[in-house]
């Protein structure tokens, strides 16, 4: 493969400032491009953010959903329906028939490995990602 000959460009750079070649608008396009790539990298390649949520009912896997699509899931537990919201890469217990409501107070989960349990209704959520940060949770 033939390489680009950079010599003439470097020579010109030697005698003039960079601003002579880039207009402010060019700089801005460049900056936006770099920031965009960084943002997408963080969003799509970061292993911290979960991609899926696994819902368990008693000793069975009830369902596994992508976190990308917004949805409301009704899980029929022994006390009644637990309602789970999924939206924008996050999941939470939205409604529960239990008395304590600890599960609802857990609020939104978004990172791989995060989990919330409703013991009375035996429903649990676990967020799954590319890399599991740990095998099990001590609490």
């Amino acid at each position: 493969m033939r390489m680009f000959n950079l010599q003439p460009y470097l020579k010109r750079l030697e005698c003039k400032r960079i601003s002579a070649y880039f207009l402010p608008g060019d700089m801005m396009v460049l900056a936006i491009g770099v920031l965009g790539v960084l943002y997408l990298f963080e969003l799509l390649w970061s292993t911290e953010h979960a991609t899926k949520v696994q819902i368990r009912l008693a000793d069975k896997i009830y369902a596994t959903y992508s976190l990308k699509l917004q949805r409301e899931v009704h899980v029929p537990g022994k006390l009644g329906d637990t309602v789970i919201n999924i939206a924008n890469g996050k999941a939470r217990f939205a409604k529960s028939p239990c008395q304590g409501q600890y599960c609802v107070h857990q609020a939104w989960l978004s990172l791989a490995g995060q989990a919330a349990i409703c013991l009375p209704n035996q429903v649990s959520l676990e967020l799954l990602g590319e890399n599991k940060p740990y095998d099990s949770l001590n609490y």
Partner: protein
Amino acid sequence: MIKFFKSLALVALCFALSACFKEPLYHSQSYVFGTLVDISIAGERDERAAMLANHVFQDFQNLHNRLHAWKATVANQPSELGELNAAFSKGETPLKISPDLAQMLLEIRTISEKSEGLFNPGIGQLIGVWGFQRDEFTAVTIDAQKIKALVKANPRMADMVVNNQSAYSNNTALKLDLGGYAKGYALDVAVAYLRQQGVKNALINIGGNVIALGQHGNKPWRVGIQHPRQPTAIATLDLADGWAIGTSGDYQRYFMLNGQRYCHIIDPRTGYPAQHMQSVTVLVPPQAANQSQAGVLSDVVTKPIFIAGATQSSRLAQAFGIQDFMLIDERAHITVSKQMAQKLHWVNADVQFTTLP
């Protein structure tokens, strides 16, 4: 062209090797002991792993039924502990009990002594008065008179007499609640069974108390420690073969009353819930065969430290030969023993904590 084939062969070799190194991982969950139980078994065929896990769940369910603290019968099986408590409340009639229960009671008495009475499963009546002998915890009306009377009755494990596989109590106020022991005991039962069955690698989690067998692939099992106030882990650590980890917190079993949090860990000296800690975590190494095992210790040792507070933590941990522990107090201040500090990987790198000398 030859170069191309060479690299293709290399890629194929990599795939083949990674397939060899990726051992099967079986994972199963169930609800026992009023909490979530989670078993992972690595390196066994799925069918065999499922059979072994089911056996362990069955053992747990049996223990749960036999040791239930407030239901006379569970799944048509009378609670052995319930019968014993009934006998205690009636006075000095010795009741025949199974050999393994007698062993447990003797062990609990020794642990209670070592903890200077702070670990006291004999205060079942107080636990009941606070509403923690129910499936769900809601605020109770605090009965100060009754609490005072129960503290005055001073039920202690030393009031219990165990011999010839029978037991009685010198104090009718003694009512056993093994909620702070049974899960740890069950971990040891499970590990003994799995080892005997030739399982090399497993991780068992009973309501947050975790014990490790072997490792996961070519790395140790990794455990996250729950943040007491956020739905995320505060730190992670590697759990080596035979090690166990336990946490007592005020965030799993509690109720709120007039803006105040009342958790399930009752100070036997005052009769009121301990209120100066958010969580206490201990990491326990494998133990010699003739003494309390890692599972039991991971469950029981957190309680006296939770009750006594940070100033007594080193001394109490030392009494049980434990060097690795972490405390998070009511103001969310984190204190970590020197040995534990070396093992923790903080989730938030900017975390502030104090390391003990």
